């Protein structure tokens, strides 16, 4: 956990510990270098691959919008991660929180919300997604406080339960599966009604950029303020640094743990709702496609800084888009992006010991 970089703070110490910046940057460059080497090894011309990559990231208003939309989900999960991590909690359940958020948003959008006035038709499913995610986080928090269950294990197990719930929801006609008209009816939900879809931002009909970006920015601002400026932020940090001491100081650490994981879960659930209402519009098995784990990576790499979460989410959002485009145009498997991300986590988590040396106690 980073005690160093809280970037939102006004009076920052004179250019705080550079190692927390230098090592992640070096690790990122090294991981990207490995990526380039692998692309070379496939025999693809590197300029072609990079051209495809670039095109997929920023080549058109569609590419840019899609990349930012991807970043939204990553940022929300990452923000939840750093919030809970301030209390020394590791929420690895983003993927499952996205899953249940997506289910709840789809359920509400298909059953009830579409008839409401426009802001509510969009807002109610979003809120339902956040609530479902919050419940998922709260279970982990409750288990942690009541049963001393490690939250890493519980959030991970809850992830699998959530993912299978999506599968279940789209397999069963009693749940969210579209009516079976023939044997070829796909196991997926109906398309969400137009009224529940997130409005797009630009007039350009080619751009899919939706208001999720503003929701994520608002969430970032809120998390930043809470962490840097509020009593709650101080308490979270106190619990994270020394549970016993903070309990002696009168902080109700149990409540804080549940609260932190609940909020983290809510942000994950909101991410799931935004994915469904923003671009996917149809609930399918496996719609989460690793966004929760990528969001975890973003949160981890940011070392507690809200600005770094946004930057990391944009980086990974564009990376994902570029990887997909590169696969189509240059034939390089997009899995190379996954590989780079894994390498990043291992290097940065593995070298934490170097980064943490010399940081203020």
């Amino acid at each position, binding site marked *: 956990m980073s005690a160093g970089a809280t970037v939102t703070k006004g009076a920052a110490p004179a250019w705080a510990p550079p190692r927390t910046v230098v090592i992640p940057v070096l690790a990122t460059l090294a991981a990207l270098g490995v990526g380039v080497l692998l692309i070379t090894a496939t025999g693809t011309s590197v300029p072609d691959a990079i051209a495809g990559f670039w095109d997929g990231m920023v080549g058109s208003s569609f590419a840019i919008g899609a990349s930012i939309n991807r970043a939204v989900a990553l940022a929300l999960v990452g923000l939840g991660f750093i919030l809970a991590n301030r209390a020394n909690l590791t929420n690895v359940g983003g993927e499952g929180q996205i899953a249940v958020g997506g289910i709840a948003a789809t359920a509400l959008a298909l059953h009830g919300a579409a008839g409401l006035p426009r802001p509510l038709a969009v807002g109610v499913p979003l809120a339902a997604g956040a609530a479902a995610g919050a419940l998922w986080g709260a279970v982990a928090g409750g288990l942690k406080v009541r049963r001393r269950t490690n939250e890493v294990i519980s959030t991970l*197990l809850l992830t699998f339960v959530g993912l299978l719930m999506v599968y279940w929801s789209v397999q069963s006609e009693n749940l969210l599966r579209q009516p079976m008209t023939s044997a070829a009816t796909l196991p997926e939900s109906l398309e969400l009604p137009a009224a529940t879809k997130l409005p797009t931002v630009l007039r350009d009909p080619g751009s899919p950029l939706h208001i999720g970006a503003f929701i994520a920015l608002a969430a970032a601002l809120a998390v930043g303020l809470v962490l840097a400026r509020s009593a709650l932020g101080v308490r979270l940090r106190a619990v994270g640094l020394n549970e016993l001491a903070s309990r002696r100081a009168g902080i109700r650490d149990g409540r804080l743990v549940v609260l932190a994981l609940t909020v983290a879960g809510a942000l994950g659930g909101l991410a799931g709702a935004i994915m469904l209402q923003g671009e996917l519009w149809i609930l399918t098995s496996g719609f989460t496609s690793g966004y929760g784990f990528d969001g975890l990576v973003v949160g981890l790499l940011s070392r507690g800084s809200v600005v770094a979460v946004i930057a990391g989410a944009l980086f990974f959002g564009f990376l994902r888009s570029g990887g997909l485009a590169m696969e189509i145009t240059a034939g390089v498997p997009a899995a190379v992006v996954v590989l780079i991300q894994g390498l990043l986590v291992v290097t940065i988590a593995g070298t934490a010991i170097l980064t943490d040396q010399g940081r203020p106690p």
Partner: protein
Amino acid sequence: MTGEQVAVFLASSLRLSMPMILAASGEMVSERAGVLNMSLEGMMLTATFAGALGSWATGRPGIGLLCGVAAALVVALVQAVLSVTLRANQLVVGIGFNILALGATTFLYREIFGPLSREVIPGFAKWEVPLVADVPILGPALFRHVGLVYVGFALVLALWAGLRYTAFGLAVDAVGEDPRAADRAGIPVALVRYVAVLIAGLMAGLAGVFISVGDINTFTEGMTNGQGYLALAAVIFGGWVGGRTVAACLLFGTATALQFQLPAMGIAIPTAGLMMLPYVLALLAVAGLVGHHDPPAALTLPYRRGA
């Protein structure tokens, strides 16, 4: 159910439990020494791919076995360096390895085999155990499997015996419960933990090879599909005790086999519910609602002399 169906069901339950039994038994040793390998899934996936590749390239499943185990041991060694020597967060590093293994195996698979490959991997032949293979029901259920099943069970028993009756086994529990006291008593904490993680790697490697070379005879992307996580859950559910851990794996494997068996018998049951069952059971277990056991006291805690 006819006798034949019973036999098929039992055989597939055992087959589906086997990777988890292998991986969980190795992981139990590592966890008793205080190191949690969240990377179990990644180790298994790496071995699944390396085993398939070795067997496909040489046409000899035995070479595939060696490749798979070697690859998993490499992952385990790096995991050990990070967890023990560099004292990294074991859970986070492990998840990183799982992402890395998924990316690397998918990438290599697409490059080497092509994305739509249906390449058949040369696999092990089934071995009919003399005398007992023809016993009705039990013969086909238990005694007509690939040799790796029997070798695997022998290794699992050897691990139990090793933990229980050898000096190394005592050392494992000592460094997992109280590394400082173990260090004072002259036990090389880091070495014991390295060996324990490598044992987890060896067993995860066998588990992975079993899936691709021993059982399904092909490779698909993300083939382990959460079985490594289930093995971790089985260790918790089994309360870090060998027999219970294997029983948990058998339970999970049977639940998986039921997904295929029940529809075949015309019983309509939401398969998702059965697939969810192992995770829910594991969740209840970690919540201490079903058979609570305390984990090794130093689990996931790195040890540094003088710290």
